[in-house]
């Protein structure tokens, strides 16, 4: 991870670490904080705790997003302090809805400059974000909303498994992992498990990201904690609840970063420091295979 972030994530880059609740790569976010990247444009549908930590650590110049909360537990307070002007550096915002962010990545993945959708009529979102525009249908004359393509400098995707070439398989919630990877100039895949190419080739319909678009494969077990990896470990819901008071208190947040991010050399040390993560280990609910014969 250290090398992947050092060589593929630069100051000032536009960075996407995706994963909708599932497969959020905290390991990558922490490494970016440790390497003190600055002036990043951070993009995600749901900034979640990881971007809250990166904002608190001073990595971000700008946030591009659609829902900034701590799901079911409260607010992202580093984000709020920056936006409400009550602490931390200023943070530029570029705000969409989920569909808008999804459309931006679809356009990026297809290398189109925009994505059309029926959306935003009657809302104040286009007034708040002039990049939400409209277009006239050449067939019906209707006006549709558009969002501009998002083509990040680097996308980091967490996944259950990949082979050494980066052929990556994901199951459970897929979010926009595929679109975010195809939209990017550089792609880092972080996996729970490195598998032999034969495992990938045995079930090719399960492959979401082909190795030919991947620049680095990093093996990082528990790399998504406190988010989760279906079939590997559960979401650490108490962590999300406990984050609310930490995030609320600048000093507590700084202490957290010192202990769990700056204070560890790598993910393995983080896992050791957390202690007892095995309690989150997944039960076995293995499905049957299908026949690829002919």
């Amino acid at each position: 991870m250290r090398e992947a972030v050092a060589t593929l994530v630069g100051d000032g880059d536009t960075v996407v670490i995706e994963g909708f609740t599932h497969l959020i790569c905290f390991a990558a976010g922490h490494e970016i904080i440790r390497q003190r990247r600055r002036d990043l444009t951070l993009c995600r549908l749901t900034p979640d705790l990881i971007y809250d930590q990166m904002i608190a650590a001073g990595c971000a110049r700008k946030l591009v997003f659609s829902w900034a909360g701590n799901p079911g537990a409260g607010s992202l307070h580093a984000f709020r302090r920056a936006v409400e002007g009550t602490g931390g550096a200023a943070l530029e915002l570029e705000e969409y809805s989920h569909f808008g962010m999804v459309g931006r990545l679809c356009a990026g993945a297809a290398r189109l400059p925009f994505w059309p959708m029926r959306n935003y009529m009657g809302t104040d979102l286009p007034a708040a974000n002039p990049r939400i525009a409209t277009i006239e249908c050449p067939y019906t004359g209707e006006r549709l909303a558009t969002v501009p393509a998002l083509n990040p400098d680097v996308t980091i995707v967490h996944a259950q498994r990949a082979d050494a070439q980066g052929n990556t398989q994901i199951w459970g919630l897929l979010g926009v992992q595929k679109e975010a990877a195809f939209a990017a100039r550089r792609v880092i895949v972080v996996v729970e498990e490195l598998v032999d190419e034969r495992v990938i080739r045995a079930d090719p319909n399960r492959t979401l990201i082909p190795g030919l678009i991947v620049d680095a494969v990093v093996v990082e077990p528990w790399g998504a904690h406190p988010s989760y990896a279906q079939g590997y470990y559960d979401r650490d819901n108490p962590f999300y609840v406990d984050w609310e008071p930490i995030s609320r208190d600048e000093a507590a947040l700084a202490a957290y970063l010192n202990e769990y991010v700056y204070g560890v050399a790598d993910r393995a040390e983080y896992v050791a420091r957390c202690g007892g993560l095995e309690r989150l280990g997944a039960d076995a609910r293995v499905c049957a295979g299908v026949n690829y014969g002919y």
Partner: protein
Amino acid sequence: MGIEAAYSPAEMMTAVAARELRDGEVVFVGIGLPNLACNLARATHAPNLVLIYESGAVGAVPERLPVSIGDPSLVTGSLMVCGMADVFQSFLQNGRMEVGFLGGAQIDRFGNINTTVVGEYGRPAVRLPGSGGAAEIAIHAKRTVVISRLSRRAFPERVDFITSPGHVARGGTRRQLGMPGAGPVKVVTDKAILEADDATGELVLAALYPGVEAGEVCAGIGWTLRCRPGLKQVDPPSTAELALLREVLDPHRLYLKG
């Protein structure tokens, strides 16, 4: 204790929301009370309700109460898991969602919802989470049901920011703006049900919960609330509904606290 005290406002709101669902409908589910309401409906009068989460789980049958909209329990045993591009394009924009649930910090006279900022957008007094999928659910779901507790702060005459459009939004009516769905047909509060007036789109008082007077409702609304002629009375949660909520659906009272 009167019957009012035999159940909590959250339990009542959940039971009322559940009754808004018809068997076999396709529901875009949010977390919290909407999720409980859907599961209560599935366990009672609507066993064939199809629950879809914006995270991509279709036909979910969670074995535990999901804390987030992306809980792993929504995936295991569901009928289908698809990417979010499909959720928003092939399901929602395609017109397949029959009911959507929405909530918000502010709901105004015409059912517009604000989940973005209190105050000015550029320098907010309170920065809220933003739209998530709410803007497009409000536009595309065939109808939406809003769940919110009454208070003058939560029900201002005009919201500070329209995140999710109601019946008369920025620039005109839903029809004028070309919105496919019917919008917020009901608002389920902790004291009463509001409904949109067919002619004007204004939210009006439609039904009262047991033991509630119209005046109590008006006190929690920031505009002069009109009343439907023939105000209805809402039945309290049944013993069976309460037992399901308390013993099966939310035994740890994660969402049914208050």
